[in-house]
């Protein structure tokens, strides 16, 4: 092993969000990826980039973590207002909207969903991640409507899996969006899915890998290592893995250690539990890290900035 590893690969770039000039309405466009070294090492990028932080919100909060509902209060019932606060009050780089209303066994309401996406697009100027249906039977309808609602905005659409990727790919191709490709903590499965997507025409610069992140204490170490392996393989020249990575550990706020914490400690325990999967994911090379507790955004941003800073007093920029 040498002092400096010889890399031959570069992580591909993916553009998220479209500004007026690019035919959208976002205030910023992010360019993620592009790394040429291990995360945060000197060869990585000249400008000291930090990962982007996405705050997750939903359109039906019934199953959403209680600690978040307590924090956001009435916002949970008003998706657009919640999105606005994500940008204005909490300082997220991206908003990730989960259409959790599709979880409930009720007649799907594609028009309602489309309206929700439109209202969120109107409420925030940030680039969006839209997490569509969680029921394969609804996929094609839901992705079609979401894709259409955000046409031209360069959304990041989620989530494609090995046995469910056609509808989402079709929507992404038709309306110019990027897709999240998720596989269960396995570098070979991640690679396979990327190949499948490519074969049906999704260009590599529209794919973001989600290697599946288990909560801290509940499989997180496997996810951490898979993220490290993906980055390593990509830098060693494996182009089927050379896409940016998104990480979310959605169970962080509902694990037993948070549920059982004394009421006075619960918020701090929740924030810290979420932080301890989110920050290590950034260290392992995730380009987008998602959190659900609004107060996690600043905590994570400060930590990632300190990590991206080589010397005191050099602020790190998000993405772009």
């Amino acid at each position, binding site marked *: 092993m040498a002092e400096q590893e010889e890399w031959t690969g570069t992580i591909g770039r993916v553009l998220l969000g479209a500004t007026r000039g690019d035919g959208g309405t976002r205030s910023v466009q992010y360019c993620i990826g592009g790394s040429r070294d291990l995360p945060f090492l000197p060869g990585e990028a000249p400008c000291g980039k930090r990962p982007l932080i996405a705050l997750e919100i939903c359109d039906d909060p019934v199953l959403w973590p209680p600690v978040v509902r307590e924090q956001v209060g009435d916002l949970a019932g008003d998706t657009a207002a919640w999105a606005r606060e994500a940008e204005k009050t909490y300082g997220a780089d991206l908003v990730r909207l989960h259409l959790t209303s599709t979880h409930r066994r009720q007649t799907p309401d594609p028009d309602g969903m489309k309206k929700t996406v439109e209202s969120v697009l109107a409420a925030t100027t940030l680039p969006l991640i839209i997490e569509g249906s969680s029921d394969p039977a609804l996929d094609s309808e839901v992705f079609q409507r979401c894709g259409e609602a955000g046409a031209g905005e360069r959304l990041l659409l989620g989530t494609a899996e090995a046995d469910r990727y056609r509808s989402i790919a079709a929507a992404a191709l038709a309306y110019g969006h990027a897709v999240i490709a998720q596989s269960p903590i396995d570098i070979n499965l991640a690679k396979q899915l990327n190949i499948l997507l490519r074969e049906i025409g999704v260009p590599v610069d529209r794919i973001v890998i989600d290697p599946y992140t288990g909560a801290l204490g509940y499989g997180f170490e496997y996810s951490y290592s898979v993220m490290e392996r993906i980055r390593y393989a990509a830098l060693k020249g494996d182009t089927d893995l050379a896409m940016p990575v998104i990480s979310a550990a959605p169970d962080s706020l509902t694990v037993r*250690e948070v549920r059982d*914490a004394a009421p006075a400690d619960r918020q701090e325990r929740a924030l810290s539990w979420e932080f301890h999967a989110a920050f290590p994911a950034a260290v392992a090379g995730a380009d987008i890290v998602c959190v659900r507790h609004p107060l996690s955004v600043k905590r994570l941003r400060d930590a990632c900035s300190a*990590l991206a800073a080589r010397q005191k007093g050099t602020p790190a920029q998000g993405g772009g």
Partner: protein
Amino acid sequence: MALKALDIYKLLPKKNCKECGFPTCLTFAMKLASGKADAETCPYLDEATKQLLKGATRPPILRVKIGVGERSFAVGEEIVLFRHDKSFVHPPGILFLVSDRQTTDEIRRVATRVKDEVFPRVGELLRVNGIAIRNDSGSPEAFGKAVRVVEETAEFPEMLIAGSPASMEAALAECGNYRPLIHAATAENHGAMCSLAKRYGAPLAVRARGADALRNLAGTCAAAGVQDLVLDPFPETLGEFLITSTLIRRLALARSAPELGYPVYLDATAPGLEEAALSLGILKYAAVMVTTPRNPASLLPSLTLRQNIYTDPQKPIQMTPGIYRVGNPTRGDPLLLTVNFSLTYFTLLGYLESSRISCFLLLVDTEGFSVLTAVASGKLNENMIRDSLQRFGVEAETGHRTLVLPGYAAPLSGRVEEATGWKVLVGPRDAAEVPEFLEQSWKKAPGG
């Protein structure tokens, strides 16, 4: 540079006298090359060759032990850059910081926490390893006194932080024989600090900013005869720590800089960023870390991350397969099937115990995979369930033939009934709902 077996062989006396305990000089050379023998055991080597061989065959990162007795901990001996390449070996020691400006009561309170606070998690006890005492007052007397307060509370590893050798000496007079970590030898004071470390046989932290400066200073201290060193790269930012500690680990593993082949230290007390610094240290090669006495609400996540990252990726923490009793089960009480992943077992156990249920748990050998993972990969199937029921003599214990399967194993239920001849009840997916399920369904079941 590391020597190959043949290079080593060339340096040996070639008597094949077996006095080293190996049949030939060549075997001895091969053992030396793989770090499994000590050059000392051949009586015919001259001193210079011995030292040469020791340098070339030592572990790339030396082992350093801090403290004595039950709570002492060893660090170093790491062999990889990424945990997936093999495994990380020694979890970093985390020490709570106190200042000699604090009152006796305050210091004692922190020391008591270090002594008593444990967090049981999946069959292991998570805890902070020791205490670091810092000479903020500048006074040797105050420093010595603070150390004495800690000493009176309990035995656990200590670290002494002082720039002045006089202060250090006062503290070592209190605890020097218990292998405290001395922090730190610097460009200014290394002569005096080295002699203190040698006098007490204590490990010594060396502080210099960046890998090059550290390499020089550590080389000087090693040449002065201090064997147990710890490197403090003294970073200004988290990013700088990551860069320097990665470089140190790389150079050490490549054996291209033996002066850097020691465990690394990180002061994680960065204002506002402490949990980030702790996380980063755990992930990226810190072996000893100091933190303020953190609130348990955010300390437990740090300790859990350390447990996760230092678990061998090839071997999840496992339970021995077999029958386990919860409460005082008697014949006729429920029998629950689960896997031998220790997280699964302890999660389930927690809910059963808190609702005071007596039952039998049959832990089958899924090689440490969780229920869902084992089902998805075919490691949990009807044949192994049948074999486990037989192997562990389950029926003789329970006196009935009804088995409760985890909700996630529902797809197997028909096949399990067929293969075993037992009646199967499918339980809930979430362990939290198991007590209520047993209340409602077990009594109605033919076995109950």
